[in-house]
Structures are given as C-alpha cells and as structure tokens.
C-alpha cells in the first residue's frame, strides 16, 4: 500500500519534470528554428498559457481538492490586477495620492495577498453553503468586484481603463513584453513552476489531506475532528492568492486593464479550463489551460464561426471524456499497461 502511494508520487514527479522540460526546450528549439519559426506571438501565447495555468491550479485547490465550486474567480483575478497596478502605477493609486510607487515585482505579491484577504472574506458566507448557493454567491462576488472597479472611477478610471502599466523589473533588468520576445515568458514560467511545486506541497501536506477529506466525505471529516471551517477558509485564501497573483502578472504583461476583462464570462472560461483538463491533480490544470488556449487560437481562421466550433469541440470532448483530458491520458496509459504486461512508471 505504502509502496503504491510512493510510486504514484514518483510518477507525478516525473511527469512534472517532463512538462517543465518541454516548456523550456520547445521554445528554445523554436528560437533556433528547429521546429517552427520564432515569433513574439508564440511566446505571448505561452505566457497566457502559464498565467492561466496558475489560475486553474488555484481554482483546482478550491474545487478539485476541497470540492467547493466557484463561478466567480475572475473577481480575484480582477482584484490582483487592479491592486498591483494601483500600487505600482505612477499616475494612479499610490502614485497619484502619495507620489510614491512600489516596484511591480513587490506589488504582484502584495496584490496576491490582498486577493487572499478577499478570499477569506468571501469564505465567511461561503463556508456554510452547498453547490448551487455557492455558485450564486461566487457569481454575485464577481459582479460586485466588477461593479466596484467600474464605479469608483476616481480610483480606477472606470470603464476607460488604465494604460501604461509599468513593466516588471528586477534590479534594473526589465521584463518587457514590448521590446523582448521571450523575457516575460521565462519570468512567468518561473512563477508558474514555483506555484505548481508549492501546490503539490500543499495538497500532499496535512492541509491538503484536510481539503480532500472535506471533498470526499464531509460527515466523516467532521466526525474525525477536522476543523471544516478552518480548512475551507484556507482553501479559499490559497486559491484567491494564486488567482490574484496571476491577475497581477496578466496586468503587467498586457500593460492595460479595464473592467471588461474581468466579467463573469471570464470566470466561466476559468472553470471550463479546469474541468476540461481534469481537476484534483497536477497535470489537469496545465492541460486545460494549454488546450483551451490552443483551441481558441487554432480556430482563428474560422472568423465568425470560431466560437460556434469552440462550443461544439468542448461538448464533443466532454461527451467522450467526461473526466477531463487527464482521464483520457489515464485510459491510454492503462491500456498500454495492459498490453505491455507490467507498467514501470
């Protein structure tokens, strides 16, 4: 039994290493025209994939491990983005009121902390609610955040948005999306890997087991003396931290934010990514973010038929694979195992 668990962990580690290796190697090869020609567009897409991987991983902690649904995570994304911009922009927020700005590399972490605080706040009513009510609560939360940033125009410039968001730089080394093709990508990739490792540590720790016990059997967890309220709050806070951090990265990458980005539809895309990839493991969120982003881009040539086909593709894949893409991978590897006699993964 013990051995088995260790094997599974080992295999997960190897998968993670493989994924990381690919994400570093593939761009490198492209840089040297090994696979395809180089382009800023390609790195931009990879950066988006990384940011959404952080988002879906955060959502996975809440939904996949703790079993709490959210249709409002764009709210945390929004809080992260605006918090970081307001602390670092010379013409808005801190820059406007006090004439001081904080370096973006610091504010992205502060912004994530602020988002986590909102996560704790949201968990107060959310702790008690079941599925549908939780869905509604999170939708309402999303709307409230959106209304706040669009109505307090003094603070956020409302629907007109904030332009010229400062770039992230560390000791004068600037991670610009404009002047360099790949610098920002490697920065985002670094954070993505960091967050994925932290996520694996969390879910394999005592806290993670607390989350899983809530998801699997609430009554039993309660009976065994698991402090449900504490773990749910933790889950919301960690999840919000992840998504808030991703939001901040997003703002500094695009260089422009306005409320339009953080509508409830964005939350639906987040949960689509997670479910599409498969929840409750390391790889699912990565796959989900990658595949959904890729599908959306590869359908571009279809112009106005694009979203229709996107819907159909998602529907068909769910019909055939109602456990997410990770389930497909498992099916294949199981059949391979059966054919190959014994698996040594």
């Amino acid at each position: 039994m013990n051995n088995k668990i260790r094997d599974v962990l080992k295999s997960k580690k190897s998968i993670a290493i493989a994924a990381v290796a690919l994400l570093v190697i593939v761009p490198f090869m492209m840089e040297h025209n090994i696979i395809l020609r180089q382009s800023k567009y390609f790195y931009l897409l990879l950066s988006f994939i990384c940011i959404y991987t952080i988002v879906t991983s955060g959502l996975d902690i809440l939904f996949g491990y703790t079993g709490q649904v959210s249709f409002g995570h764009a709210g945390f994304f929004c809080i992260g983005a605006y918090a970081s911009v307001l602390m670092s922009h010379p013409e808005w927020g801190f820059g406007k009121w006090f004439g001081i700005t904080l370096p973006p590399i610091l504010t992205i972490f502060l912004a994530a902390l602020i988002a986590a605080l909102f996560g704790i706040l949201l968990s107060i009513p959310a702790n008690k609610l079941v599925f549908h009510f939780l869905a509604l609560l999170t939708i309402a939360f999303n709307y409230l955040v959106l209304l706040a940033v669009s109505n307090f125009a003094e603070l956020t410039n409302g629907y007109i948005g904030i332009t010229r968001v400062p770039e992230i730089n560390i000791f004068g080394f600037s991670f610009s999306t404009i002047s360099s093709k790949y610098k920002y990508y490697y920065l985002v990739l670094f954070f993505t890997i960091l967050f994925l490792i932290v996520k694996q540590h969390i879910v394999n720790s005592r806290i993670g087991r607390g989350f899983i016990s809530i998801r699997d059997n609430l009554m039993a967890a309660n009976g065994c003396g698991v402090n449900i309220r504490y773990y749910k709050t933790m889950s919301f806070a960690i999840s919000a931290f992840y998504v808030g951090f991703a939001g901040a990265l997003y703002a500094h990458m695009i260089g422009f934010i306005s409320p339009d980005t953080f509508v409830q539809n964005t939350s639906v895309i987040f949960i689509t990514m997670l479910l599409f990839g498969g929840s409750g493991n390391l790889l699912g969120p990565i796959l989900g973010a990658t595949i959904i982003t890729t599908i959306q881009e590869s359908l571009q040539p279809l112009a106005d038929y694009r979203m229709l086909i996107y819907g159909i593709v998602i529907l068909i894949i769910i019909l055939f694979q109602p456990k997410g893409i990770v389930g497909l991978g498992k099916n294949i590897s199981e059949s391979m195992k059966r054919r190959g006699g014994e698996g040594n993964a």
Partner: protein
Amino acid sequence: MKKFWGFALALAMMVSLAGCGSTKGSGETGNVTEGGSGEKYSYVIGHYGGVTGQVATAGTAGLNAIKLAIKQWNENGGVLGGQIGFEFYDDGATTEGAVKGVSYLIDDRKVDGIIASQLSGNIQATGDLVEAAKIPEVGTGMNPAWLQKGWKYLFRSLANSEGGAAPLVDAMEALKVTDIGTLIYQDDGNISANNLVMAELKKRGTINIVTEEQAMVGETDWTGALSSILSKKPNGVIIFAQGEQGSLMVKQVRSLGYTGYIFGCETMSMPDIRNVAGSGADGVVFFTPHCIPDSVDEASTEKEREFLAAYEKEYGSLPAHDVAYRAYDATNVLLTGVKEAGTKDGPAVRDTIANMKIDLLAGSADYSKFDNGECLSGQKVYIIHKGKNVLFSDFLKENPIDTYK
C-alpha cells in the same frame, strides 16, 4: 516510463498544434485572396476587430468594408506594382484578444499596416506593440483619448467625438431645451463622449442638468432609471449608448410617455435604431461623422453613393453600422499613404500619411493640420424625423421648434 512518454507526447502534440494554428494562418477566405507570408503580395494589411462577442454588428460591418476597399484597390492594379494581401484576427471585442491579435498580425503574419478595431480600449492596449514594430495603424474609433497618448504611428480616419459636443449643445439651445436628464451606457466611448458634452454644458451654463443616470453593461431594462429622469420633468433627454442598447432606451423612454427631444451620439445613426424603436425614434437628435441613408439613392455625396452601391452589390444590403464607413476610409488612408510613399517601409509610410491630404467619405481630410494623427474635426448633427435621418439645419428650416415636445 510509458506513462511518462504518453504525457510527453500529448504535450508535444499540443504545443505543435499551437504552432500549426499560427502557421496555418489566414483562413480569411471570402472575397479577398489568401494572404501568405508576404511574398505573393506587395503589401499586406492586417485588421483586428470583433466579429463575435458583444459588438459583432460593428465588427462585421468594418471587416466587410475593409475587404471591399482592398478588393477595389486590387482590381485597379493593387499598390507598389503588386496585389494587396489581407489578414484578419477576431479579438471577440476583448482586450486580451486584441493583444494576441496585434502580436499575431505583426510577428506571425508580418503585416505591413494595420486597421484597428473601433474599441478605444483595445487600441490603447495594443498601441505600444504597434509603435515598437514601427507599423502604421489607422484606428476607427471616435474616442479622442487614444490619439492623446503620443503614439507616432497611429492615425484616425474620422473626426473624434470632441467635435460633436458643441454642435449638439447648439442644437439643444436652438430647440430651447432648459432642463436635461442623462442616461449614459457605461463603456469608454459613451462615457468620454458624455464627459465632453457635460463640459460644454457647464461652460455655457444655459442648460440645467437635472439628473445623471447610468446604464450598466449587460442590462436590457432601464424603466427605473428612465422613470427617475422623467419624474424630474426635463424637456430634453440625453441618451448615449451603443446602438443595441440605445434603440431600446429610446423605445422604453417613449413607452413611458416621453414625447420630447432625445439627444444622442453617433450610434443613433444606425438603421437599427429606427427599426427597433419604430416611430419612437422620431425626435432623436444626434451628432455623427457618417449617417447611413436608407437607400443608395439617398447618399449625400457621389463618393458615398459609389461606396454604398459597391457595398450593397458585394454583401446584399447596406452596412448595418457606420464603422463600415470608417474602416473603408481607414483602408484608403493607409493604401494611399503607401502609394504616395512608394514603399512599404513603416516610417516612410507614417511620414507620408502625417502630411497627407485626402478626400474621404468623412470629407476632406488633412493630416498635416494636426500633429497627433487626427485628420478631421467637427461633426454633423442630424435628427430623425418621419422615419428618416434629416440634417438638423434642414429640419429647423421646415419645422417649428415644438414639433416634438
């Protein structure tokens, strides 16, 4: 190990799929020939806009007009001794889509010039990317803001909404409006247009603003806000909104029993306003750079008649949104600039456009008069009267002021 390779393979497949997606490229079929990597064509124009998502009516009209303009140029021998290619990216009216789209057009499709969307947020989000690539871009939005950021490669093919405030307030004064209530749809274009009008009203001080109401994105019912406006007994109502919502607001304020004048911005020129609001649309006064007539014969200039006839022949109906005019003009500005510069070199084309004079659907444009990429100023004021868009000055000549009250 097998499991490992299974996943590695899947991931590699996906990554290459992303690559393929980007190289497969321009499926922009239709009437414009396939774009390639720039070898077949002497000049490639890129366009990002939303043909899905919230403002698909405007996006589709703009895309159609650009394709039409390029087709006409190609029939007349193209530019720089070769044919013109076209690349399109559907941004779904989102900022993220626009950023991806501009990056795709510049870095992957290697376009030589860009026609921007009409959404000012999307232009602002991508301005730095275009500037860094030194590619001339012509925008189709009316918001003054995006040309005030100092981008050198960005131009506009129409007058901005700044020029609309004064004539609209003139019209209010001519109609003896004394108390006015406002309902403003909360998006950047309408908010900024309204701010200009409010500034003008406050400067003149002749008209009293009784109440300012807001309409949120994604609503369809404004009975509450409109009732609140009407309870303050204004004799004029300002409604600034996108065409879809504006038509409903007009309809709803009429069904609440208001029969006086309504003041709007350029979106009120959409034919759909009159379709949706029916006879309720009569008495709407608005400023606009372009006003789509009901038939080709009613076009106000020869140039407009030719454009509308060609558009109708190509797509079977007149444009549904005046973004078609703007995008058509934008394409002509860009291509004329290229032709006069005699090269597709970005900085050279930019310098040529910045000093160019050109006749557009919007009127005689002169970029040399402005130093920030504008070419025109001032707007025309129209009124909807008996189901037709009529020039406001003509309306005043033939009708008493209290036609609608």
